[in-house]
């Protein structure tokens, strides 16, 4: 755990200067304190997770019927997503309006309403108070003041919106419409993925002892994939084509990665005894082999072959976060499900091409925490500029630099060129 003591100076500096002054070398440097500083961690919860951004809450197919609910987190805040009587989607903070206790105690389920165990305040499916024991007193004694109006109390709601059955929530009235927030490329990809009915096949919880941004960034890092993940190479598995594309949106913080099928795919044999584990026959349109969709700040879609998953990021501390995977596949295709079960061996905390990511981000965290506010990472492959909206090859870290630039802007950090930190307050697309 990062030490909470003796950090007052840092927090003061955060509040006085907009948080951090980016190194003069520019966006090709990533200061280590971004991953260690408790003040920055708190600022992220305020500005990103409770700020004008949309966070992934779940899939509509997880809550098909009135009363169906699923719980999760938006940053540090526990939230509940519910289908209401009219078929609408509701979300609220899972915290009793009376004393703050957790109200919804099961991860998923169906309920007519919700009751806090502490004093039995009860709520409807929108999180509004509908019952307060002893509200009018008992035996003529006590009770709330006649002016007390329980309708004025509720668990705090979030704005909710969905695209292609993917549900997002925000605490902020300033978040742009979800369609604009996602942008055209991600909208199109999600629409293509969810053009057929899907079924959730399971969940996986994963705790990683590192800063959440290290993994969010890792998901768009072309450079590491063949260097760190040796599984494909070791077994002679046909690797996807080098033709690849990264499309950015939301100030560079979203990233749509697309890697295309290798036209050579049919001509080589793998040394895997069970090749179905790594088949790339894809359920995706066009000739896409791999697509990874990062939707800032808390969501990653991994779409490879028939192994589809969504990762929801839940930061817990500067040096610890949880990822909850939702696995899904096409409900109308038994063959897809079977491929999905085989191919999922590649992903998740035990995955052939995933376990190294957890290992390496934990090992980064363990080293940089030793000198939290000294030094920076180097992100200078393919120049030092932040990219335009799109790059078309894999030999680049420009999409990482773009992410850090956008992140710094949203966080209100002073940019390296001496610009005005407060400029980040303005919410604009691109």
């Amino acid at each position, binding site marked *: 755990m990062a030490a909470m003591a003796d950090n007052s100076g840092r927090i003061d500096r955060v509040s006085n200067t907009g948080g951090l002054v980016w190194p003069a070398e520019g966006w090709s440097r990533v200061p280590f304190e971004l991953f260690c500083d408790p003040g920055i961690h708190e600022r992220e919860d305020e500005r990103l997770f409770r700020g004008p951004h949309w966070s992934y809450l779940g899939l509509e197919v997880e809550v098909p019927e009135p009363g169906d609910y699923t719980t999760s987190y938006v940053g540090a805040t526990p939230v509940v997503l519910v289908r209401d009587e009219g078929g609408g989607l509701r979300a609220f903070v899972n915290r009793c309006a009376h004393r703050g206790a957790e109200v919804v105690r099961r991860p998923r389920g169906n309920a007519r309403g919700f009751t806090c165990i502490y004093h039995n305040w009860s709520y409807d499916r929108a999180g509004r108070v509908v019952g307060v024991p002893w509200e009018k007193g008992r035996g003529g004694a006590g009770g709330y003041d006649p002016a007390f109006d329980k309708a004025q109390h509720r668990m705090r709601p979030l704005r909710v919106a969905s695209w292609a059955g993917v549900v997002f929530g925000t605490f902020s009235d300033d978040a742009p419409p979800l369609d604009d927030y996602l942008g055209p490329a991600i909208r199109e990809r999600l629409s293509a993925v969810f053009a057929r009915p899907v079924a959730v096949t399971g*969940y996986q919880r994963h705790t990683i002892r590192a800063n959440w941004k290290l993994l969010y960034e890792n998901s768009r890092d072309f450079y590491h994939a063949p260097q760190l993940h*040796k599984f494909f190479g070791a077994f002679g598995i046909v690797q996807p084509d080098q033709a690849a594309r990264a499309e950015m949106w939301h100030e560079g913080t979203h990233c749509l990665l697309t890697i295309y099928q290798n036209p050579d795919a049919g001509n080589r044999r793998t040394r895997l005894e069970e090749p179905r584990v790594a088949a790339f026959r894809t359920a995706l349109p066009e000739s896409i082999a791999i697509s990874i969709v990062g939707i800032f700040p808390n969501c990653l879609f991994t779409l490879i072959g028939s192994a589809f998953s969504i990762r929801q990021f839940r930061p817990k501390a500067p040096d610890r976060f*949880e990822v909850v995977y939702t696995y899904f596949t096409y409900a109308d295709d038994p063959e897809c499900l079977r491929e999905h079960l*085989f191919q999922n061996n590649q992903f998740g*905390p*035990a995955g*052939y091409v995933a*376990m190294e990511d957890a*290992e390496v981000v934990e090992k980064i965290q363990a080293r940089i925490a030793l000198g939290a506010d000294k030094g920076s990472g180097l992100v200078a492959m393919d120049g030092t500029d932040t990219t335009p909206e799109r790059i078309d090859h894999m030999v680049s870290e420009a999409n990482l630099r773009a992410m850090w630039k956008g992140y710094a802007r949203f966080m209100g950090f002073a940019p390296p060129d001496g610009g005005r930190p407060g400029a980040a307050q303005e919410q604009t697309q691109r």
Partner: protein
Amino acid sequence: MSGIGPGIDRDALFAIEQMNKAYARCLDDDRLEGWPDFFLDDGRYLIQSRENRDAGLYGYILYFENRAMMRDRVTSLRVANYYNLHTDRHLIANVDILGVEDGVYDARANYAVIQTDAEGRSGLFSAGEYVDRIVFVEGAPKFAERLVLLDTSNIVGLLAVPL
């Protein structure tokens, strides 16, 4: 079948207990190449959280439906994957036989795996239950299926070596 009584198949229970000890020692000694030999050729090795199982979902962390897939796993750990340097210590208890049908034993055991890192720090890595289907081949027990049912559904770090 289970417990102390005239119906207990003491020979089968003893053989299954011995297999569990050997299984634990094989993994704890990092003799991973021997691990698939505890299974039939078409034996299944599955890791699933209790959370998924209770919800009627698949959600397998690992899904191997033959011994070839287990050999691939071992090869990959040896030549391809980078994972945390550690030693495991499997503690297996409450080995029991709940029933037998057509020569297939429905067996259970509790397990805990204590993991120790490269700097000597130990901690509980995983706790759960083995849900086994076991058959005897030439007098020796083999897994037709070992389902590792995780109580510890929240994996910390990563899971490389089989449980």
